[in-house]
């Protein structure tokens, strides 16, 4: 009796928190600010003051063949808001035929210091069009109007230490699609819950093998089923965002995406394995072993982008990273969302186990009435 009361409290709590999450995510959290400085902002700043600008290299004005320590490398840095158009053009190989002189930010790097020469020789490979850069630079020569290519200012930096080369705007904490980012409040908790669910499957499978109580098998199976459900949500909400942010739905060169896909397939395999066996004992036993074995893919997916990545990962890392730090509002929302999804999972798991129990009872009754076996 007490137990069902608790179940009801969790259910109501989950429902309220889900509604709250939706409200917070859609209405409350402000859109993430890009840290790209607009041309106006740069023009209004004091000459000589240092500002950090980020963008992608849209044009290389003069890249010397042989590096002379005193030589100037000039390139223009376009705002990431142009990134979508850029990606689209890059994909059909039409970078050159499009107009890329928007140049809200123009950067000139003067007098490459001798000390950094070794780094610079490696540099040109990185300095292709489309490279993502963040530069801490000084505002110089505002209001140059004579050259039509320049929007009216230039920036300069004298140290390569001030230049950061990144693989994606996200590495500089810049979202090119701020509205699509809202899906994060549902995507990340779903992924978390799927990991949790598979962990429950692991524990319940081990307990089943140890104790041989069928109830643990029920927990393992039901939890895996919900895990597949939630990882399906995570795996389908991700591409919706990725299309906006990266310009493509899916990237096979991204460790996180590939490992999560593999994880999803493994547990679908687990469900198929269970479905293809009729004998309860064998199903529970063999399912438990595969449930344990399959868990190998969970840390693989969870830690993929942090532990020795064989491939690159552009998937944002939210926790334990210094790049994608969240605003306090976003942090609170994601916290509530995680609690909401966890409670939702717990209440769904309890219900699912109850259903499984009823199903087994029904089978038992059928057998008694039918007189078979």
């Amino acid at each position, binding site marked *: 009796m007490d137990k069902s009361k608790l179940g009801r409290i969790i259910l109501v709590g989950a429902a309220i928190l889900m509604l709250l999450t939706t409200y917070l995510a859609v209405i409350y959290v402000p859109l993430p600010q890009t840290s790209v400085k607009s041309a106006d902002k740069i023009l209004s700043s004091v000459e000589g003051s240092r500002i950090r600008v980020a963008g992608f290299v849209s044009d290389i004005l003069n890249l010397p063949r042989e590096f002379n320590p005193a030589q100037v490398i000039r390139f223009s840095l376009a705002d990431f808001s142009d990134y979508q158009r850029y990606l689209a053009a890059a994909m059909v190989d039409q970078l050159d035929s499009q107009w890329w002189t928007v140049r809200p930010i123009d950067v000139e790097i003067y007098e490459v210091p001798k000390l950094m020469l070794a780094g610079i020789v490696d540099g040109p490979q990185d300095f292709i069009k489309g490279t993502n850069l963040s530069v801490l630079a000084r505002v110089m020569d505002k209001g140059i109007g004579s050259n039509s290519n320049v929007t009216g200012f230039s920036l300069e930096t004298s140290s390569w230490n001030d230049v950061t080369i990144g693989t994606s705007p996200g590495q500089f904490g810049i979202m090119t699609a701020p509205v699509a980012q809202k899906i994060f409040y549902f995507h990340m908790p779903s992924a978390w819950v799927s990991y949790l669910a598979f962990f429950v499957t692991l524990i319940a499978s081990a307990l089943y093998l140890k104790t041989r109580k069928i109830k643990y098998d029920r927990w393992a199976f039901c939890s895996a089923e919900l895990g597949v459900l939630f990882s399906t949500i995570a795996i389908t909400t991700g591409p919706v965002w990725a299309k906006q942010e990266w310009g493509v739905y899916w990237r096979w060169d991204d460790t996180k995406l590939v*490992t999560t896909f593999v994880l999803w397939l493994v547990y679908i395999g687990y469900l198929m*394995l269970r479905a293809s066996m009729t004998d309860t004992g064998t199903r529970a*036993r063999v399912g438990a072993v*595969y449930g344990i074995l399959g868990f190998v*893919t969970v840390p693989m997916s969870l830690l993929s982008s942090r532990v*020795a990545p*064989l491939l690159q990962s552009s998937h944002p890392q939210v926790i334990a990273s210094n790049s994608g730090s969240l605003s306090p509002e976003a942090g609170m929302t994601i916290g509530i969302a995680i609690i909401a999804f966890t409670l939702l999972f717990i209440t769904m798991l309890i219900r699912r186990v109850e259903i499984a129990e009823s199903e087994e009872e029904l089978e038992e009754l059928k057998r008694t009435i039918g007189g078979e076996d």
Partner: protein
Amino acid sequence: MSAALAIAWKDLKIELRSKEMLSAMFLFSLLMVLAFRFGFEGSVDAGDVALSDLGASSLWICFSFAAIVGMHTSFAKEKDRETLEGLLLCPVDRSSIFLGKVLSNMVLVFLVDLLSILFFSLFFAYDFEGNTIAVVGIAFLGTLSLVLVGTLVAAISVNARAREALLPVLLIPLIAFSVIIPSVSATRKAIAGDVSEAVGEIQSILGFAVIFGAVGYLTFDYVLEG
């Protein structure tokens, strides 16, 4: 260990007499390399495709599919001839059965690996030169990891209906990231001659081999029970 060796020897002896699996795997790898040869004829002749890329991917397709065929048969045969019960009645550890099966599968699959590498070298007129040892070594490591997890999954799927279809469904996602991707990458580097750059991949393969071996050794008891 001697029990494991005895079981492995028994499997290999049966195989030597019937040559069922070996001939199937042999023809399979032959056809696979042939298909690649004809499929990529134009681009290979024109030099559009790097042979190290093509070699690594086509070899690993041969290895993994041959392994799946071989490992499936090693348990399915026992089940069909009802000799599995006999094996279970042996007064040895279940883990020894696991080790024995791993050993016999390893020998057969590795043999097919060597044949595939030979066929590749033959059909593509490609000389591995000094890289042969590196390529064979990586094939050995990758196959070991593959067989360790594959033997366990084959034992799992042998209980199911539609087991032929189920084994790849259960196995391929497990090995995709842990074995295939690092092995293909390491093989590509080995063929290109810079195996020393493949340390990360080799560590990854070895790490997963340890994990799969441990899980298999510990849980095999439960799979074959009853």
